[in-house]
């Protein structure tokens, strides 16, 4: 199960005006605080930030909302934060912000239902993520087969994704994409 957080609604709460654009650092910081409040009180393991009704996202706001949020959620019970309803322009700003921190996040863009990684992810992580996507949940061997990789390389990539909370590593040695699958 996943908590869906509509950023357009939090934006309106934060600035008390009908703006659709996530711009400026003060706005981004105010929205992030509201997201953190929701995440502290959610009982769900996953959360999805919904950009569907957001207009523009600038680089500074992407830094405040996404990059700093990922850093601050490390101490919270929520296992993963993902993005949905992301446009190409949103994705561009988010990639730019996350690269500075060496962070990565899972996002579903409006133009394609297939989840993808935004931010600083090595090519191996991206390939392993793509191979896991159609399976939803799987152990490493079928992913290694699909990629024609040795098993240790596949496990390293999947564990890297799990460390960055882009997939969930289960005790039975399977890896799961989660709510966006």
């Amino acid at each position: 199960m996943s908590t869906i957080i509509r950023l357009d609604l939090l934006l309106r709460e934060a600035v008390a005006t009908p703006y659709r654009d996530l711009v400026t650092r003060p706005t981004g910081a105010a929205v992030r605080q509201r997201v953190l409040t929701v995440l502290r009180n959610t009982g769900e393991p996953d959360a999805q930030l919904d950009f569907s009704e957001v207009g523009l996202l600038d680089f500074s706001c992407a830094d405040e909302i996404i990059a700093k949020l990922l850093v601050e959620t490390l101490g919270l019970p929520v296992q993963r934060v993902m993005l949905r309803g992301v446009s190409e322009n949103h994705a561009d700003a988010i990639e730019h912000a996350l690269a500075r921190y060496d962070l990565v996040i899972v996002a579903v863009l409006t133009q394609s239902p297939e989840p993808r990684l935004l931010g600083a992810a090595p090519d191996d992580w991206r390939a392993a993520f793509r191979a896991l996507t159609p399976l939803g949940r799987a152990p490493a061997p079928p992913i290694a087969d699909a990629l024609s990789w040795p098993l240790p390389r596949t496990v390293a990539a999947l564990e890297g994704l799990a460390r960055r909370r882009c997939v969930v590593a289960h005790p039975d040695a399977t890896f799961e994409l989660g709510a966006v699958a």
Partner: protein
Amino acid sequence: MTRVVPVPQHLDHLSVDQLAAGLGPWPPEQRLLVDAHATEWASPAGFVALITLGQALAELGAPKPELTLPAVEGVASYWAKVGVLRHAEPLFQLHGKVPRRRVSETSDIVVPLTIIRNATDVHEIVGRLTEQATQILAHELGLESSVVGGFGQSLSEACQNIVEHAGTAGSVAAHVYVYRKRLSGRKVAVIAVSDAGIGFHRSLDATQGKRFGDRWGDAQAIETALIHGISRFRDPGRGQGLTGIKRYLARWEGKISIRSGTARVAIVPGWDDEPPRSEGLPWFPGAQVTIVIPGKEPSA
């Protein structure tokens, strides 16, 4: 006594140097008369620079300067249309026939001259842009929606630089016009932002000055921010604005030019020949950022 400061016939982000040269010592010892009677054309960068000059003098408590309006038919009227005269009136004593034309949003004006004081102003500017300018940029320049989105991001970041770093207000204007000298007459969108604040040198001095020793100056300060993405804040996420703009412009062959104090640093695409670094320019208050995004090349 009054000192006459001639405004160039064509006032753009480069010929602001001529305007600056006319200022003489700063703060001025005499009342200034900014003489634009022979000015035939001004870019958004020229407009915001004029407002910055008026603002800087007002903040100094200097005598209110005079501004002689362009005498060439239609020019002063255009200045009214793009919002310059509305904001010039409180800062200058205007001479010449002041057209009472309303500020209008037409196919060449993406953002009329607007004052930026705080984050709310940035929200307002971006909000207006997304509604009306998308059509201008798409139709007049043939830009795709992803390019238009990046334009909005760049506009927002350029305006935020004022709020975050200048320590005072500034102004922004964005127009579409034909680049006759370059790009074979293609249309371009130009964003110009200017403030009368502390400038790049002072903004970065406390955190960066010692690193550069004797080399530290206006040009080095602009390069530190623009080329290396360093901000005066220690927060690792800071400095994203200019680096984000730079990335966007690199993708679409755009140009950014920043003037502050006595220097100008530009990231210059292949179609232009502006020097990448100019030092020893006549001093001008605050900081001026000019962003140029070329329109789509017309198909043969």
